[in-house]
């Protein structure tokens, strides 16, 4: 078996590069807590995965002990905040060239302290070749796994947990990468794995898959032929060379055969009629090298569509094998998880090809190896802070010009506490797309939002430092955060698709991830605490004035209260400026800022009409901000619903994001309100008002990834009204979301650019009441 992994870089003539200095902060993060390892060694690239734990600070809120009533002075906060250490699970994936394997293994050995594992799961052709090296270096027993099984399970895992993993590549369109939104059910799909050779696998369920074909013409052919035909011997350099070549100097095109007349045939003259067909007559001087590499580089895309024209029906009847077999060593050749491939026509299938790796393509093997022992009982989330984007190692960049660390591709995924599922009330889960605007598509909006986030960065940094007055290194960490997020924004300016479809949500989430990364778990905790305290004090006054109104005026006042409360949003720059400069800015002022009716989107009359009818059975409300918003806006509204006989599920974020109210804060707030208000009190006691967590830590809302407990409850209680509040949840996301029940989406547009785009002005009001068609 010594020659099995013969494709490794070692045998391509490069000695192992031991001199590399690894930047540990960036590459093998969190290694000291690594619990389990898996490795996939392909012909040219090694993919290492480890399951580790991360310790970060979390801000916890806790009610004061109320036994001593005297502590409730006016200046006292309503609850206390403590920063605690929390341990969460994280998957780390690192991809690097085989050249560095020894250096990397040494590095791992030196930093490995806590692991209790005795084995390392290994797959890929190189697992044989480097077995001894790994065992010697790491003192772990190499346990080999079947490579295809690993690939498929890993692919399933990624497709399920990273919504924007698969994409369609359309040459010439803008953007060229169009991400598909993956939904929980990804099956069936066709997996075309292009390693040294090519395998085509039909994946029908988690455990059922079938090898239906393949080809021996794959990445190894490109590399092998490229090395023979050019002076370039390394894979990456061949790709780079190919990107500069002109294949038409080598390939015989339809127009070479048909002259200019191909149009009359309905053919594109650019189609390749015969690959390398011109080489027999062409001058084969050295000048042709790049072109030759290109000819080679393009063999996979040039050749595969021929095969791929077939799958829809091969899938029905196909079995058996190919004269051309395959191996599964992974290269950076094109590969793509294709959702629902059998449903796509050949034309679509062909467009799915692109010459470079999709996101995370090389990591798929590994997920499964780790998961062999860690079944799919959790949901996972990509950590944008710790992951390198799609094109981090673009072949256009000459390898020698790249920074060393650029040859390492990273992916990190955080384990979420509980599984995430679809909201059962989605009208059509398979077509649900949370985000309203695709910024990869909309260049104008993209430019605006990237600038907007850049401009807001100073404020966020300042806020982060201020949130940890006792910390000596807060400023330093905040600076690192600034750098990290700034770099992400710059990456996104140049490669909008680097982390999947670019949206306002992904920009917000990335910022949260980066803040967490530098131990700023909740920069707004103190602000929220203060706001909640202030608002609680106003609660009874607000309730009194509401109760004094007649029924019809009260309904409008409640809605206005909801909207005015929503003005208190530290996530909106226009507002945070106001709040920063005028801390006394109050609920009444906010109401005055609101647009007068008719609102920008105004279905209030329809809503009022509805309220005159029978009460809803159960309302699901997604709350937005802490303070005035939730206490003076949402709770009075909840109270009115409860009084009508409607049960209420109030869903808040599981983790902090901006000044959004978290689940644990909502518990305290509710408790405090219950102490003042009999309606809330009895509803809580009788289980007619339920506080739940969404499973999310985002300022936006993805209704296809909600906490399972919430989803179960929604079904049990037969929720027939969904209220979504705030710009992040009702405008940036879910504005077009179609539900099976009545819904209310309301928000105040606190961004003049967006307001203008929607045809309104700053503080325009969205009040969208929708009833599904019968």
């Amino acid at each position, binding site marked *: 078996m010594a020659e099995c992994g013969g494709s490794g870089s070692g045998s391509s003539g490069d000695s192992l590069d031991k001199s590399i200095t690894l930047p540990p902060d960036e590459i093998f993060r969190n290694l000291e807590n690594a619990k389990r390892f898996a490795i996939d060694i392909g012909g040219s690239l090694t993919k290492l995965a480890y399951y580790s734990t991360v310790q970060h600070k979390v801000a916890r809120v806790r009610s004061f002990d109320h036994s001593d009533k005297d502590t409730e002075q006016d200046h006292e906060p309503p609850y206390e905040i403590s920063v605690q250490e929390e341990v969460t699970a994280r998957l780390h994936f690192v991809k690097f060239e085989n050249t560095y394997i020894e250096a990397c293994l040494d590095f791992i050995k030196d930093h490995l302290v806590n692991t209790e594992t005795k084995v390392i799961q290994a797959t890929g052709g190189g697992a044989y070749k480097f077995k001894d090296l790994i065992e010697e270096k790491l003192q772990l027993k190499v346990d080999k796994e079947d490579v295809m099984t690993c690939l498929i399970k890993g692919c399933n895992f990624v497709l399920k947990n990273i919504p924007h993993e698969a994409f369609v590549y359309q040459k010439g369109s803008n953007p060229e990468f169009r991400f598909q939104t993956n939904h929980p059910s990804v099956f069936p799909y066709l997996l075309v794995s292009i390693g040294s050779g090519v395998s085509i696998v039909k994946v029908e369920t988690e455990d059922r898959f079938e090898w239906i074909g393949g080809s*021996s013409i794959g990445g190894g052919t490109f590399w092998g032929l490229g090395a023979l035909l050019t002076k370039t011997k390394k894979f990456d350099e061949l790709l780079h060379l190919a990107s500069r070549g002109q294949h038409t100097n080598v390939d015989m095109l339809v127009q070479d*055969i048909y002259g200019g007349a191909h149009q009359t045939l309905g053919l594109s003259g650019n189609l390749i009629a*015969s690959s390398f067909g011109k080489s027999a007559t062409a001058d084969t001087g050295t000048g042709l090298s790049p072109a030759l590499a290109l000819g080679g580089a393009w063999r996979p895309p040039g050749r595969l569509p021929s095969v791929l024209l077939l799958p829809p029906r091969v899938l029905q009847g196909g079995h058996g094998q190919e004269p051309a077999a395959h191996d599964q060593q992974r290269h950076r050749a094109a590969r793509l998880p294709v959702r629902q491939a059998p449903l796509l026509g050949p034309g679509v299938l062909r467009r799915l090809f692109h010459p470079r790796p999709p996101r995370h393509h090389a990591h798929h093997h590994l997920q499964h190896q780790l998961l062999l022992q860690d079944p799919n009982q959790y949901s996972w989330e990509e950590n944008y802070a710790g992951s390198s984007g799609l094109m981090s190692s673009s072949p256009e960049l000459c390898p020698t010009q790249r920074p060393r660390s650029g040859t390492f591709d990273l992916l990190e995924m955080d384990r979420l506490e509980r599984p995430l599922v679809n909201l059962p009330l989605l009208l059509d889960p398979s077509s649900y797309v949370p985000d309203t605007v695709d910024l990869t598509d909309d260049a104008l909006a993209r430019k605006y939002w990237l600038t907007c986030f850049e401009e807001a960065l100073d404020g966020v940094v300042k806020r982060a430092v201020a949130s940890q007055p006792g910390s000596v290194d807060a400023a330093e960490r905040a600076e690192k955060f600034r750098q990290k997020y700034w770099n992400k924004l710059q990456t996104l300016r140049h490669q909008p698709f680097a982390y999947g479809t670019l949206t306002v949500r992904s920009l917000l989430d990335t910022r949260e991830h980066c803040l967490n990364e530098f131990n700023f778990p909740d920069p707004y905790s103190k602000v929220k605490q203060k706001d909640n305290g202030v608002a609680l004090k106003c609660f009874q006054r607000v309730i009194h004035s509401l109760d004094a109104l007649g029924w019809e005026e009260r309904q409008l006042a409640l809605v206005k209260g909801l909207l005015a409360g929503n003005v208190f949003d530290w996530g909106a720059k226009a507002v945070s400026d106001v709040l920063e400069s005028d801390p006394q800015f109050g609920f009444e002022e906010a109401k005055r800022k609101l647009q007068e009716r008719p609102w920008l989107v105004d279905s209030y009359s329809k809503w009022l009409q509805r309220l005159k009818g029978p009460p809803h059975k159960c309302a699901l409300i997604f709350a937005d901000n802490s303070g005035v918003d939730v206490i003076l806006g949402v709770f009075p509204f909840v109270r009115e619903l409860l009084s009508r006989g409607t049960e209420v599920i109030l869903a808040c974020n599981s983790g902090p994001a901006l000044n959004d109210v978290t689940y644990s804060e909502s518990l305290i707030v509710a408790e405090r309100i219950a102490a003042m208000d009999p309606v809330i009190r009895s509803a809580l006691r009788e289980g007619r008002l339920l506080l739940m967590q969404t499973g999310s830590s985002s300022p936006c809302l993805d209704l296809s990834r909600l906490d399972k407990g919430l989803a179960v409850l929604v079904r049990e209680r037969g929720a027939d009204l969904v209220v979504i509040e705030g710009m992040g949840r009702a405008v940036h996301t879910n504005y077009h979301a179609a539900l099976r029940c009545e819904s209310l989406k309301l928000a105040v547009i606190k961004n003049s650019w967006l307001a203008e785009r929607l045809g309104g002005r700053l503080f325009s009001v969205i009040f969208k009441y929708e009833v599904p068609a019968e």
Partner: protein
Amino acid sequence: MGAGRLGAPMERHWGVAATSASSVREPAPGGPDGRRREPLRRRANSASAPAVGASASAEGVRRDRPGSYSGATSASRQRVESLRKKRPLFPWFGLDIGGTLVKLVYFEPKDITAEEEEEEVESLKSIRKYLTSNVAYGSTGIRDVHLELKDLTLCGRKGNLHFIRFPTHDMPAFIQMGRDKNFSSLHTVFCATGGGAYKFEQDFLTIGDLQLCKLDELDCLIKGILYIDSVGFNGRSQCYYFENPADSEKCQKLPFDLRNPYPLLLVNIGSGVSILAVYSKDNYKRVTGTSLGGGTFFGLCCLLTGCTTFEEALEMASRGDSTKVDKLVRDIYGGDYERFGLPGWAVASSFGNMMSKEKREAVSKEDLARATLITITNNIGSIARMCALNENINQVVFVGNFLRINTIAMRLLAYALDYWSKGQLKALFSEHEGYFGAVGALLELLKIP
């Protein structure tokens, strides 16, 4: 991205010829009445109802293909007479201008009466004499003498059909010859197919004063193959297959009776490859194709070995060992990859060993030529197998000039198809492998009044 148009799908690449001309090959040993396998179990093609409109690419109303009128009795004399009036003036050519090779078929009438000879214009006579008395034309034109079909009756005329080829890059010289020999004075119609019929149309007109009648190459291909099969090969079978293709001792080339041709998967391997599913003489569709064809084999061989002719490339390939170049399943798994039923000898990655410097240094040019041949052939076989499976067709006919004097490729195709289909598919070949398009063009001419 400097990729240019590389993203273009390879949906339709017209297969064209792949060879360069050289020595005339020996007449093929037509296996006499060797053991003949029963035709494979055939699915009732009527039952599978080939898609209507599948032949949408074929333009116009299809006419009956011209039969052989040999043995016309006096009863049919009238019919022959009427044909005589409709048949075109000599010379009768069919031209197929591919990406690499031009294929020319020429009908030489042998029943010329003295009276007729008297009337025959000088230029016509000179063409006939020039083509039939030579076996090579210029430095690159070749007449495949061994393929000549003797005593053929076409449109009531008896004569021999000649098969001539020359490289496409000599097309200007050919057109010039037409001008020098004053073809245009003959008022003949030149029926031409292949991409070159379009590419060179203007040159024919301006230089040679000749109007080309352009024909669809796939239409011509099908017509040609059906016709040639029906007339046989001078009393022998046109179609053949290999028995024991993997065993060089026991391997036998045996005639195959293509009496029931439909449905048929037709794989035309020229510079590129086209795969057609043929359900009847005028119902066919192009299933797919690949740009990895004969042109790729020859082009790559030129680059990798410095060879200059197709024959040389094949000769080198015959002496090489592809397993030094290709990475096999057993190179990766140490043996068979049982989980997916892949035998250890199967190629996992073509040229996969060439990633390694040591192995690059250890291979010969012959090994590289062999690997190129195996790669291209396996790939075509693999696509053909999937097409056959998909189209529910179990006889596969491979034609095109890639197969000329290319026994290695033919035997590999035969073996691979049989092995991977577990005996369900049969690879068939035809003696006039590269000339069917040109024959089809000639047949079209004969229907032109």
